[in-house]
């Protein structure tokens, strides 16, 4: 990704400050900027999350998904390796794989039955050599030059990623030394896929990234805990942006484990308290928590730019996939999972805690509401900018939830990738 400055019309987007504390609202509504994002971000030097390895466990398993808004299929080859290809026939461009999920050792385009292997290699063209006196394909037609567009694929901890870039570093390096330990924290043993739910929002995909990078909003927008007087004992915060570019980060809320807290739910009692003037849950079981990690974190929210957000909230585990659908829309796919060795009780608890997250989540439904409020509020004011100041004076501070540092860091990294500043863009390379 080496874009000479000239190539960038200065007018496309101007960030008034260099620290990411002012974001022109145009980036949320401009079709032109959206097109560039597809090129420089989703087809640029980044790795996009496609899904979980367990979704395609057996050879031939496949799943249709997207990199940005390009339809892509991820597959498991016969030898167990992973593959991904653009879902566009090499012949006349039809979607080849028409199912969301399935198992097939080859993929035929329905239009003229061109046939591809699980890796996207063209292996059959009907009537290629004609028939009787019919000529078929010309002599110089070489199937090897007409495979599906194949992407680089790698997985880390069971998370599958793909990239259009030949130059971006290996996935593990892309995730990087700062973020890997937190990915490892969740993906430290074999997982079980529990299904997915989808949410469609009429707002720009970056508003969702801003949202997950913004712990400042948590206690202010999501009133579930405070309304029901759920005591938050000795919370410790951790907010770390990837120092290389600020595009990935981790946000955690940690509490010291306390005597009696255990998987038998005894933790419940002291976790709930009601005040005379307050409301209380009749059945607080939805908020139980079984400690299953060394560090007792109620929340672990970790965006790996651009398409993944790893989430642990109490005992729910989700890999969220973020898919842009034009400047004004995005789709979220929540991949729920547990661990293979979960007890039935723990598995049941993970499912019950699905009430907390996703489109109907007690502590998440407000997020898409908020991103849509911003989309509608800013549509007519493309030239105005947001004001992102919280804890700007203490950029180094990582132990607070009352901060917008991660948001500012994100925007600086975004500008570099998009070539929105005079600095020679390093993209996400260290």
């Amino acid at each position, binding site marked *: 990704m080496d874009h000479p400055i000239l190539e960038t019309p200065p007018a496309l987007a101007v960030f008034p400050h260099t620290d990411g504390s002012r974001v022109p609202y145009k980036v949320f509504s401009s079709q032109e900027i959206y097109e560039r994002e597809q090129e420089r971000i989703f087809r640029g030097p980044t790795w996009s999350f496609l899904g979980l390895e367990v979704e395609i466990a057996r050879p031939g398993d496949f799943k249709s998904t997207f990199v940005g808004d390009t339809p892509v299929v991820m597959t498991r080859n016969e030898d167990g390796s992973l593959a991904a290809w653009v879902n566009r026939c090499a012949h006349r461009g039809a979607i080849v794989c028409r199912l*969301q*999920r399935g198992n097939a050792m080859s993929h035929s385009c329905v239009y003229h039955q061109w046939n591809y292997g699980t890796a996207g290699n063209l292996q059959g063209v009907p009537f290629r050599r004609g028939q009787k006196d019919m000529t078929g394909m010309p002599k110089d037609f070489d199937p090897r030059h007409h495979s599906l567009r194949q992407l680089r694929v790698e997985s880390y901890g069971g998370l599958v990623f793909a990239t259009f870039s030949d130059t971006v570093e290996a996935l593990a390096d892309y995730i990087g030394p700062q973020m890997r330990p937190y990915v490892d924290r969740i993906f430290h043993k074999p997982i079980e*896929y*529990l*299904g*997915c*739910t*989808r*949410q*469609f*929002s*009429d707002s720009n995909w970056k508003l969702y990234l801003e949202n997950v990078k913004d712990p400042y909003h948590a206690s202010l*927008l999501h*009133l*579930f805990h405070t*309304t*029901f007087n759920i005591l938050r004992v000795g919370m410790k915060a951790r907010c770390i942006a990837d120092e290389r570019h600020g595009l990935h980060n981790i946000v955690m809320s940690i509490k010291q484990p306390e005597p009696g807290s255990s998987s038998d739910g005894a933790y419940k009692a002291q976790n709930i308290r009601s005040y005379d003037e307050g*409301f209380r*849950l*009749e*059945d607080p079981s*939805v908020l139980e928590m079984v400690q299953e990690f060394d560090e007792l974190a109620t929340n672990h929210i970790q965006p790996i730019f651009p398409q993944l957000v790893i989430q642990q909230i109490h005992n729910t585990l989700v890999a969220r996939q973020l898919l842009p659908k034009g400047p004004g829309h995005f*789709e979220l796919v*929540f991949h*729920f999972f547990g661990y293979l060795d979960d007890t039935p009780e723990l598995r049941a608890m993970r*499912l*019950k805690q*699905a*009430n907390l997250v*996703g*489109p*109907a989540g*007690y502590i998440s*439904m*407000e997020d*898409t*509401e908020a991103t*849509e409020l911003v989309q509608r509020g800013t549509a007519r004011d493309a030239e105005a900018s947001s004001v992102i100041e919280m804890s700007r004076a203490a950029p180094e501070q990582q132990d607070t939830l009352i901060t917008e540092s991660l948001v500012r860091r994100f925007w600086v990294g975004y500008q570099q990738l998009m070539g929105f500043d005079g600095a020679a863009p390093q993209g996400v390379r260290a």
Partner: protein
Amino acid sequence: MSPGTMERMVQRFEITELFDRYAAALDNDRLEEWPALFVEDCHYEIIPKENEDAGLPAPVMLCDNAAMLRDRVLSLRHANIYEKPTYRHFTSGLQWVAVDADTLDVTSNYLVVNTSQAGVSAVYQAGMAKDRLVRTPEGWRFKRRRIVYDTSRVQTLLAVPI
């Protein structure tokens, strides 16, 4: 009229009465009446057809007793922030079998049309309901209601139950 006919006519009538009460409560912002249509020891769930067909359990909403239903209403009234929807429920394709004299297993199609604050009405969700009804002194109540929705792309959010 064949002997069984009247019995099924009455069953259809009573099921329809329950469904209509259910719709009237949710569609006219009387959420507080909704949990009372379930027995205490009930199961309520909203899950995408996509998962149901694949035998996967992940739901968007899951309550395993009536207290959780009341909690959901309480939270919608006092804790959660969302644009208040105006639902209209429609039902069709009613099918049922009597498990025993006091138990009916019922399936039906549903459509929920929603109107936004801006005053635009649109199809919000379609799907099927898989229900178990039990006879109580107050009449038929939901022992189990599983909402299996076709509309896997939930628009914006799902606050009010289906």
